[in-house]
């Protein structure tokens, strides 16, 4: 397995958000994490990636115990993520944004002597082409449309050459066509680069069309875990989350 979460708990004051989450993910899986609002999906991502410290429990990634590690150390283990609210470098160009992430990936962040301009040019343009931003490489990031910003954030995460990607609502705010494009790209990353994908998504069409495995989180605990058809036909899941229309 590439990721193992054991009895993870997280509270904010009296509010208990994660109440003992346990799950495992096999390498190269395309797994969706779903659940009603407030189920603890983003909090789970935040604890796994080191943004928050858990109160209890363990997280193992790629054979190592990463519980309570600093976020930058976890990222160095090739565990990348994107955020629910798009998180990019507003005043940098798309090129400079991806280049900065590549510099970090290649452990050159303390290099004061090498010329930075044009560094990793080929790789940067390749990544921007991959996410469909090749023609806007020199645009300031804040001049991009919302969907393009999401793509750029994905390119920044990919520059870390991740073994695993945690994507928090990668298609939120996108039109159906664009959602398909992004999900197709995510599947391509798994198929061609062998990246394990774990994503939170509210668009149920996208989830059932693209995910190979679905984990349902409810009230801070894993409620169901299985193949898309199993989840779709699980009456308990329908009751708590999907509604009778599915």
């Amino acid at each position, binding site marked *: 397995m590439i990721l193992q979460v054991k009895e993870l708990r997280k509270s904010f004051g009296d509010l208990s958000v994660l109440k003992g989450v346990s799950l495992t993910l096999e390498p190269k899986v395309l797994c969706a994490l779903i659940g009603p609002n407030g189920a603890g999906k983003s909090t789970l991502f935040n604890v796994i990636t080191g943004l928050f410290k858990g109160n209890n429990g363990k997280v193992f990634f790629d054979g190592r115990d990463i519980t309570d590690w600093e976020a930058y150390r976890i990222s160095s283990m090739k565990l*990348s993520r994107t955020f629910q609210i798009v998180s990019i470098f507003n005043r940098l160009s798309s090129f400079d944004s991806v280049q900065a992430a590549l510099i970090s990936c290649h452990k050159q962040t303390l290099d*004061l002597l090498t010329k930075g301009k044009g560094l990793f040019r080929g790789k940067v343009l390749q990544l921007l082409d991959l996410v469909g931003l090749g023609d806007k490489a020199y645009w300031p990031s804040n001049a991009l449309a919302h969907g393009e910003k999401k793509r750029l954030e994905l390119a920044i*995460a990919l520059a870390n050459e991740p073994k695993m990607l945690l994507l928090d609502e990668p298609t939120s705010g996108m039109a159906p066509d664009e959602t398909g494009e992004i999900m197709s790209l995510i599947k391509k990353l798994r198929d061609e680069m062998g990246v394990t994908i774990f994503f939170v998504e509210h668009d149920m069409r996208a989830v059932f069309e693209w995910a190979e495995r679905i984990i349902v989180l409810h009230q801070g605990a894993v409620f169901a875990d299985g193949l898309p058809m199993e989840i779709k036909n699980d009456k308990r899941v329908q009751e708590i989350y999907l509604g009778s229309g599915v």
Partner: protein
Amino acid sequence: MIQAAQSIRNKGWLLWASGLVLLLVISPLVVSEFWIYMLTDIMAYCIFALGYNIVLGYGGMMPFGHAGFYGAGAYFLALALIMVRMPFWAALVLAPLFSTFLAAIIGFFSVRRRAFYLAILTLAFGQLIWSVILKWYSLTGGENGITGIPLPDVISTPGNLYFFTLAIAGGCVYVIYKIIDSPFGRVLQAMRENPQRMEFTGVNLDQHRLIAFVISAFFAGLGGTMHAVVTRCVFPDLADWAKSGEVVITCMLGGMNTFFGPVIGVAVLFFMHTILGRFTAYWAWILGVLFILLVLFLPDGIMGYIQQSRIASWFQQRESESRT
């Protein structure tokens, strides 16, 4: 098309830079001794401002105690030459390194804090340096400062000192530019825009902030050292919080998000001090009003405004090209 535009822009910059260098080289031949002295001091201050802008403009931090490093460099040089009788060139090298050493200690405690807390903490450390300078009378001379700093014969004339300072300042411009353009500089700029995003690509934020802080303190120390060389005297004001505020103003005035913005800011500051100071003792009031107007109407500073106009025209050009 983009490459062609880039090439024209580069040629434009080359032309500007060549003109500026030519102007600086011939200036001592055509201006009075007073202005040679002024220009020399301006260049020394530019080292301080450009160095400070590494943390302010490129690092997105606003430490408020850099005058402490400026003053420490100046006093180290003065004391090394007068009290220890150290060779001038050794003192010149060691003085900014002393500021760097202080910055490593102060930065270690300060850069872990963000925004307001960083400003206050560095202000406190800066004032600590200032109070040591002011109160340790037997060593520093207190309010009387230290005067009569000896210089080697080779730079004792105004003209030679001017060219010596020009060479040091030119070297600093080159080194700072290289740092900003290095992989470290590029990561620093990304950290300024979104530290959390950069942390999630594997960057240890505190470590990189500390390095930027220490580098900027080196240039602050060198600026102070050169100021002591130029004026041949040092006073406690060099390390005072007002000096720390002054360098923030010069960077913001000129445009902290541009490389040469701080140089423009320093030029405006010295111009107001020297020219307006002749007519009124309240020149700082005019500077204050100018600063308020700039923050309100040109928040990116003078150079920042020019750069933004260039970017806007680039977008307009792209838009018109895409229509045709």
